[in-house]
């Protein structure tokens, strides 16, 4: 475990699990008779219970946000950049919670867990969860953990939308809210990219109408293609040029060379797609992209975003990333302007970066400094 004791890492972590045996009704009306959430925590909850911070993961994220597993010392949690002792979300003074959303595929009740009625995996029959369902289930988790209020709810991309949903659904619960690279709802272009991803999965012969697990197969080609398309939208054109250029991984540009050409960027995307396809459940990908499509912060307020955010009692940090074209800066500005119009305390910055939508996960001096300084106001002094 070369990194598990690394400087300012939370170190070795292990997931926890909680089972809720009361019926949980989703926004679409369907009911889960019982459900489980897997989650991780870092740091200690103080006696006053006022130092708890919730991290909401993005589309393909998990509850493993920071630290290392004993059997995988190489790969840190997905937001190890920001969570740890001395990091922006400082575990020396904050108690950090991250849970896997319902419908996920990393342990929380979802399409790859057993349907108690049939004893078989849910598969495509798993009901469609929405962002507000995840918020409500996380509230159950908070109560189970003895937390009565979040000092902050924080997320990027879909996680940022979830953090905003928290702030308006349970105003008394959210003291601070951080929305990174988020949007108040998706555009037609956003939905179109999600549809391409879903179509890739549904077109795979191994999809089997979503019942692939009982046929002992997975639609890995479809999921890989979905991930390749998705991944493309997380990067910026300039960032890709810097990183891959037109470099060949295999083959040669010389005229006499007769070979297969593989550009670096192709190799990278194929690798990302293949790796993802063995780790991520196809049904979950379909459900999560659909939850994104359905998300609309102002849906309960006839599209009036100002009226929607007016319910919140939180202080907000809204950050966008200059080269993000999935949820570009002007989408964050919509959120910012609605918050300003509603008279909510808000800090906004557009981080200059070539990292595209992935900017919220990657090192950047201004980004880390801003998050670090803003987080000083979160939790007990």
């Amino acid at each position, binding site marked *: 475990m070369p990194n598990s004791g690394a400087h300012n890492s939370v170190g070795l972590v292990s997931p926890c699990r909680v089972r809720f045996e009361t019926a949980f009704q989703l926004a679409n009306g369907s009911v889960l008779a019982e459900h489980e959430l897997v989650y991780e925590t870092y740091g200690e909850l103080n006696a006053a219970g006022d130092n708890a911070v919730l991290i909401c993961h993005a589309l393909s994220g998990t509850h493993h946000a920071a630290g290392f597993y004993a059997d995988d010392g190489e790969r840190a949690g997905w937001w190890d950049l920001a969570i740890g002792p001395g990091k922006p979300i400082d575990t020396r003074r904050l108690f950090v919670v991250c849970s896997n959303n319902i419908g996920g595929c990393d342990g929380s009740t979802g399409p790859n867990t057993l349907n108690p009625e049939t004893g078989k995996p849910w598969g495509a029959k798993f009901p469609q969860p929405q962002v507000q369902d995840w918020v409500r289930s996380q509230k159950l988790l908070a109560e189970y953990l003895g937390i009565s209020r979040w000092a902050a709810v924080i997320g990027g991309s879909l996680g940022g939308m979830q953090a905003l949903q928290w702030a308006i659904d349970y105003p008394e619960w959210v003291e601070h809210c951080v929305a990174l690279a988020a949007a108040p709802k998706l555009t037609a272009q956003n939905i179109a990219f999600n549809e391409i991803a879903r179509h890739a999965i549904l077109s795979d012969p191994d999809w089997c109408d979503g019942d692939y697990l009982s046929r002992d197969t997975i639609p890995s080609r479809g999921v890989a293609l979905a991930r390749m398309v998705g991944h493309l939208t997380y990067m910026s054109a300039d960032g890709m040029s810097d990183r891959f250029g037109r470099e060949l991984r295999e083959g040669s540009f010389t005229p006499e060379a007769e070979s297969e050409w593989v550009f670096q960027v192709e190799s990278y995307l194929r690798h990302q797609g293949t790796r993802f396809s063995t780790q991520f459940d196809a049904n979950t990908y379909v459900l999560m992209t659909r939850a994104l499509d359905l998300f609309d912060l102002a849906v309960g307020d006839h599209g009036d975003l100002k009226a929607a955010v007016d319910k919140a009692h939180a*202080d907000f940090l809204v950050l966008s990333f200059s080269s993000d074209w999935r949820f570009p800066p002007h989408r964050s500005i919509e959120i910012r*302007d609605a918050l*300003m119009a509603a008279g909510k305390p808000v*800090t*906004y910055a*557009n981080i200059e970066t070539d990292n595209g939508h992935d900017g919220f996960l990657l090192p950047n001096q*201004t980004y880390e400094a*801003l998050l670090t*300084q803003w987080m*000083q106001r979160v939790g007990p002094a």
Partner: protein
Amino acid sequence: MNRLDLNTVLGWVPRGSKVLDLGCGDGAFLKRLCEERGAVGVGVDIDPDNLVSAVSKGLDVIQEDINEGLNCFTRYRFDVVILTHALQELTHPHLALERMVHIGEEAIVSFPNFGHWRCRTHLGLTGHMPVSRAMPRSWYDTPNIHFCTVKDFEALCSDLRIDIIERATVAGAAQNWLGKWWPNLFASSAVYRIRRSAR
């Protein structure tokens, strides 16, 4: 830079005001306004390092280019909108002034007076654009692209139907009384309280 203008601004901000500080820099002045005047402040700046400094002081800041029109404030009103020593750096000072008196019940503006006798003497005697301790950059690389005089500013306010509520001048100690009586010649900086004309 001589920032005596800030003391004047501080005195003009009513207790407990909602304040918007345009070009708030590192937030030091806005922080003073919050602490000494009980203001509820929002800062606007474009420089990332300034934003980090202001946030580290516990302030709320919005990263925005004032030249882009301050559109985020269309539906929110402030008691006071402040622009200190930045008017001359703006692409369209007149549009910014109009926005300021629209967003705020009142606006406070300070700027270096280009009609000051030192500037005039420098230009008149040397034939070169004035360069001084307060304005150290050469004409081609200065951020100060729209210098004006006290007279110019007051004429613009009149054109824009903006009322001047109060004027204060900053001058060297020896010329302080001269600055009051003859601001266009002796004030090194001028500070104005303005608002949209009721006319």
